[in-house]
């Protein structure tokens, strides 16, 4: 019965994914309506207007909640089906117990997390869980113990993250903190230069006891904080230069550590953020120009860059050595085809670092390229959701923060998937939320939770705005009016 179960599971997961993606796009398409008394002839009192708005807001929230519950159901269905396959293969009831605990985590996240993150974005939450679910499935299929480790990292991070909204709330004066952020972020990556350990050719790991940590993963988040605080005053030329100096220091150190992917991510994040803050698209072209020039120099100067580029240009000719990984990845995707070979039926073990940098190829091989494309779409929709949040936010600093983090994570995804599929040379970065790797999953979860925190704060303000003023005193009312105007 095993074959037939795998056969069915393959299609079930694909269908679940497709429906999930469809719902996600419907969810981001739902507009939040605001009652506008000018559309109507009748006169409305402010109180009435407020009531209408509360009603509309509740309708919107209910719709989102309803859709998100279907999505959660789909995540659980595909998770159960895939773990069912893994259970049949391993014939070990421990797998089922692990599955139950994971589903419990998903349910708790969905129903308990909002108590702290009041009014969080269910869409973002679901996308996070879906991506993690695929990670748990594929990591467990490749190495069961790694999946348990990954799971523990997730639980710990989510618990610690409960403090994030409060933390963001306390940081109201970013201007004074910009040097602090810069220093912290820079120290994180610079410390590796001194105490670092070399893994896979990049010297960007640090050994603490038995655990290997990649501080650049965490530095990324602080870096965006630093950039946002530099640029939140309209992105004047002076600030752009200051931020540029800080960014350049980071990038230089990363290049020295041979962390190609990291250097690229920092560069692109900086460029994107200055363009957004200043509104000057010329920075984008300047950035692309400088970036291309720097890439050419890097290609000429560093042999490891040439190796990667040559492996990308012709993986088949260099298959015996440098092109091996690229070729194995393409074999995996190609052999899997549109529908995949079925979970446990392929041979993703043949791809070097199949569970971290190349997990996308492993997923395509066994779960099908359609599923892989669904993942791409889910990353797109996640990105759009983050951008919607950034647009909703009122404070410039928060806007830049959310946008910066969103662009950073989506660019990392682009580098990872592009590198695995031979769209661009491989840069050795992880697939956010899916790849195995402690530092990667912890930092990505924190990043998502920071965005959630920003959203929650914004909703908080909105709720205060909608709630009736407690005192009808003139001063209070005036302040209220002032705030309302300011936030429009």
């Amino acid at each position, binding site marked *: 019965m095993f074959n037939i179960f795998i056969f069915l599971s393959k299609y079930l997961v694909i269908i679940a994914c497709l429906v999930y993606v469809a719902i996600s796009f419907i969810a981001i398409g739902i507009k939040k309506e605001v009652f506008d008394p000018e559309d109507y002839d009748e006169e409305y009192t402010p109180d009435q207007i407020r009531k209408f708005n509360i009603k509309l807001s509740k309708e919107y929230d209910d719709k989102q909640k309803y859709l998100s519950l279907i999505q959660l159901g789909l995540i659980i269905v595909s998770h159960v089906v895939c773990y069912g396959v893994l259970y049949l293969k391993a014939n070990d009831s421990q797998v089922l117990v692990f599955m139950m605990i994971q589903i419990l985590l998903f349910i708790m996240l969905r129903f308990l997390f909002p108590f702290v993150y009041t009014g969080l974005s269910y869409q973002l939450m679901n996308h996070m869980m879906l991506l993690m679910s695929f990670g748990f499935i594929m990591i467990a299929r490749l190495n069961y113990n790694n999946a348990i480790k990954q799971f523990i990292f997730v639980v710990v991070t989510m618990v610690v993250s409960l403090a994030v909204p409060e933390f963001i709330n306390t940081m109201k004066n970013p201007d004074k903190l910009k040097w602090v952020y810069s220093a912290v972020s820079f120290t994180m990556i610079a410390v590796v230069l001194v105490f670092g350990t070399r893994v896979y050719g990049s010297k960007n790991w640090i050994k603490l006891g038995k655990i290997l940590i990649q501080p650049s993963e965490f530095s990324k988040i602080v870096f965006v904080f630093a950039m946002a605080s530099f640029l939140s005053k309209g992105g004047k030329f002076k600030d752009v230069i200051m931020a540029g100096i800080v960014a350049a220091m980071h990038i230089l150190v990363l290049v020295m550590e041979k962390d190609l992917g990291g250097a690229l991510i920092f560069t692109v994040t900086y460029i994107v953020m200055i*363009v957004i803050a200043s*509104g000057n698209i010329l920075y984008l072209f300047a950035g692309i120009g400088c970036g291309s020039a720097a890439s050419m120099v890097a290609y000429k100067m560093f042999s490891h860059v040439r190796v990667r580029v040559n492996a990308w240009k012709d993986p088949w000719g260099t298959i015996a050595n440098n092109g091996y990984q690229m070729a194995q990845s393409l*074999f995996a995707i*190609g052999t899997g*085809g549109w529908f995949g070979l079925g979970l446990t*039926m392929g041979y993703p073990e043949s791809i070097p670092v199949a569970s971290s940098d190349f997990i996308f190829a492993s997923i*395509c091989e066994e779960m099908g390229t359609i599923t892989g494309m669904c993942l791409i779409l889910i990353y797109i929709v996640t990105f759009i959701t983050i951008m919607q949040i950034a647009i909703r936010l009122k404070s410039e600093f928060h806007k830049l923060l959310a946008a910066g983090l969103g662009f950073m994570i989506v660019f990392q995804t682009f580098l990872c998937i592009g590198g695995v599929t031979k769209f661009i040379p491989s840069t050795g970065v992880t697939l956010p939320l899916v790849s195995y790797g402690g530092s990667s999953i912890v930092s990505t979860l924190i990043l998502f939770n920071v965005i959630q925190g920003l959203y929650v704060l914004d909703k908080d303000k909105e709720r205060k705005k909608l709630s009736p003023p407690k005192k009808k005193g003139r001063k209070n009312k005036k302040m209220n009016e002032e705030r309302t105007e300011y936030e*429009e």
Partner: protein
Amino acid sequence: MKNKDIENEETTKEKRKKPGKQDKISAKEEKKRRQALIKKKKEHIKRVKTIDRQIYILGGIFIFGFIAIAVHVGLYIQNESETAINNSYNTRSKVLEQTIQRGEIYDRNNNILAQTIINEDGTYYRQYPYNELFCHVVGSYDHGKMGLELYENYTMLGYKETLSKALSSDLSGNKIKGNSIVTTLDADLQKLCHDALGDYEGAVVVSNPKTGEILAMVSKPDFDPNTISQNWDTINADTRSVLLNRATKGLYAPGSTFKIVTLTEYIREHKDNYNDYNYVCSGSDTFNNAKIGCFHGEVHGSVDLEKSIAHSCNCSFANMGVNSSASSFRNTVEGFLFNQNLAINDFDISASSFKMDDNANEEEKVQCAIGQGTTLLTPLQNLMIISAVANKGTIMKPYVVDKVISSEGNIVKQNEPVALTTSAMTKEEADEVAKLLCSVCEYGTGKELSSLPFKCAGKTGSAEFSGSGESHAWFVGFAPYDDPQIAVSIIVEKQGTGSKYAVPIARKIFESALKEK
């Protein structure tokens, strides 16, 4: 607009304010403060709008990047993956074979050329009913796959899945049957070629010049793929390169068969008056230090184009070569697809090479013109040249896999004939060369073919190698002359002249293949 509204609102509020107890100075200050606030607000709104606009623009660019990746992956799966995954570095077939029974390979008349036999205990092996007959083209399975077993490895491990199929194989405990391959090969013709080549080393390739279908492909020495594992040490130690498919990988000097190309070049350069060509052969000639002699020092006397090719007069062709333009000659040769790696899925092909600089000296030109010198080609390449002559200048892509069928016999994929180039020769050139090659088989070096009931066209060759005076025997040709059905390329290594060793093989092939039709 909105900003203006706010401003208006503010001013009306200001107006509504009663002066009351407040003195005028503080009212003014209050007004200033408010105006500053409004200004700040306006600036803020403007900046927020800028940020939002930039987010839309950059976000759009990033999303476009993702869509580009998705399209890239889709195109890879749809177009490239099939060829890409059939690589010996892709080790997935062992995993797939645990659940899938590798499909069969058939010839054009449904004879099984390769099949998987499953023992009662579940172990399996690959069986080749014709033993060594198809060892190079169909290839072998054990000890590193070769031939079609390699190039179509994953095709035979694929299957058109249906729920009922998965269900029935699951219930019966059998493996799912993979797709099978129907080739263009003809087992009878293959056997005939194999026998005709006898104990000699060499290669025979037979095709349909109009479609590119390969009907037979023999390379010797050969081996039995059924027992390759047992005999691996012997096969590997054999210095004659037993595993090499000489038909597609063996590079030889073309010898006199290359005169077909030289002839094409001469006609091309002398469009209007090539019929007036005349040369007096005295058995040998010297072209600026390069001494050329005809075979066995034979004196051909006054020859035109027809006599030159019919008797394979070296001196006359050297004369044509010396007077040709080097760049034009090179273009003509490259028009026959020399010096390039051909993208042909069904074989591993060595690229044929031809070197001639624009300022090549006369010695080089002379050597090239008569097919000695540095020129190297494979028997398959030579077949493509003669096919261009037979097919009005068009070279069809040689192929072996006719179609892929599912285990129920439904067609999964049908290969259609494709032209590799339509401009190797013009139709007029091809017709003229074919007419001249016909004379070779009527009274020239290939006259043994003249007794056949149909007219043939072709060219013999004796390619000297390693300067030892020994030569490989060549023959390329097609028949019938009026309506070409069969093209052959034959090389017999180290034996002597094409007339003596290669032409008889061609005769057997033509006789047998065209008798049935």
